């Protein structure tokens, strides 16, 4: 990866982009793949992908696009500087340039469409490295890397990010284990990973340990609490259980929850990992191969003012 670039891995795709281009749009599960990055003033990079069964004729796609552009009197030229096998066109706009490139990945049958916006001068070198870096994500042994919005998680293969939300300073990802036909394996439970900014405003003088207890949902009670090592930090772990209803008493099932949280001093963020599962015993532990990466240096905001 070239210097100054940051890697984003989201669903089927990964891309290396300038760190100042922040993720603005990311698709949810079961929707066409999409990542949109923007700087302070403009959308800069838009990546769309979808799985198709047939092999598309990209030349035909481009010919049709050019014909439409001619009809609409849009000025364009062929994209000659793109690394092979990317094909595309360069569109001139009033105050900049838009590069459209398309590529089909045969192995995973993904049709990928990239649009790069250059508000001022076009940076062909950066454009090449951007297009070079757009590729389907590969499994890292038994793990899969999810990296976006400042969060970086290695999850076991077979688990999928089914829901994500991004509120002010709070990023939340919910992972489920998937089975055949793209269905969720409810018995395997759910892993929620959160990255929370502005810890002073959240903790309001409490320790992370006390905050975990206060955050327990209604109906849950704490069973045990301990401190466990988490990378270079020590995390507070809390095991809790939901109050059993009549049906749960009859079946012997109980909703258990394992919460783990730590404050990363390098980032000034709280990381919160929650694993919930319906079990017949109280021995709950996070499935193996889960790894939440922290200690990423805080962004230098002023340096990004005129970047890109």
């Amino acid at each position, binding site marked *: 990866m070239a210097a100054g670039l940051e890697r984003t891995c989201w669903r089927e795709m990964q891309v290396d982009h300038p760190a100042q281009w922040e993720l603005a749009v990311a698709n949810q599960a079961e929707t066409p793949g999409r990542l949109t990055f923007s700087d302070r003033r403009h959308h800069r990079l838009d990546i769309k992908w979808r799985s198709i069964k047939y092999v598309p004729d990209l030349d035909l796609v481009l010919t049709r696009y050019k014909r439409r552009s001619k009809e609409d009197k849009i000025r364009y030229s062929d994209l000659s500087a793109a690394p092979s096998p990317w094909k595309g066109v360069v569109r001139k706009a009033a105050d900049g340039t838009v590069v459209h490139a398309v590529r089909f990945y045969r192995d995973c049958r993904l049709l990928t469409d990239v649009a790069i916006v250059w508000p001022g001068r076009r940076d062909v070198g950066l454009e090449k490295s951007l297009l070079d870096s757009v590729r389907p994500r590969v499994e890292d042994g038994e793990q899969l890397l999810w990296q976006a919005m400042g969060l970086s998680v290695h999850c076991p293969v077979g688990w999928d990010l089914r829901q994500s939300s991004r509120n002010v300073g709070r990023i939340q990802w919910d992972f489920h284990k998937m089975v055949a036909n793209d269905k969720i394996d409810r018995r395997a439970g759910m892993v929620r990973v959160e990255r929370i*900014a502005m810890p002073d405003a959240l903790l309001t003088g409490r320790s992370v340990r006390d905050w975990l207890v206060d955050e327990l949902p209604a109906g849950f009670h704490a069973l045990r609490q301990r401190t466990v090592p988490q990378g270079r930090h020590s995390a507070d772990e809390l095991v809790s259980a939901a109050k059993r209803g009549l049906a749960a008493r009859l079946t012997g099932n109980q909703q258990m929850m394992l919460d783990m949280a730590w404050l990363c001093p390098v980032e000034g963020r709280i990381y919160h990992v929650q694993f919930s599962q319906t079990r017949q015993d109280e021995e709950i532990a996070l499935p193996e191969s889960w790894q939440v990466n922290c200690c990423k240096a805080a962004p230098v905001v002023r340096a990004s003012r005129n970047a890109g």
Partner: protein
Amino acid sequence: MSAKDGKAKRQAKPTVEDFLGAAPYANEAMTVTPARDGGALVSIPMKRPNWLVPPLSWVIPFSPHRRVKLDAVGYGVLKLCDGKRNVETIIEEFAESNKLSFREAQLPVTQFLRQMTQRGLIVIVGTEKKAGIR
């Protein structure tokens, strides 16, 4: 410039560039009372509405002040609204002090500035050259 041109210029929707370049000014008439928790209680004098005359004023209560309670984070942002800093600089300073990225800070700060504008704590002034919305 004709009156028609002026109206069109006033109605032009400000761009992101315009908004980031605009400068928030704090209301000089407000009084700020700092609180122990780092927040503040802000009091803004209110003008009595012309229609609020007896006998309506006997039954409709009217407070000559509007009070807004700010937490430590909000008070910190209000202190940055001095007319010298533009919105972009305020977002940058807020992001740096809270270890946020620019986009992470942009949404809460702009929402908060909008709320403070609606409550009369600040006024956001765009530069005529850039925004055309003075």
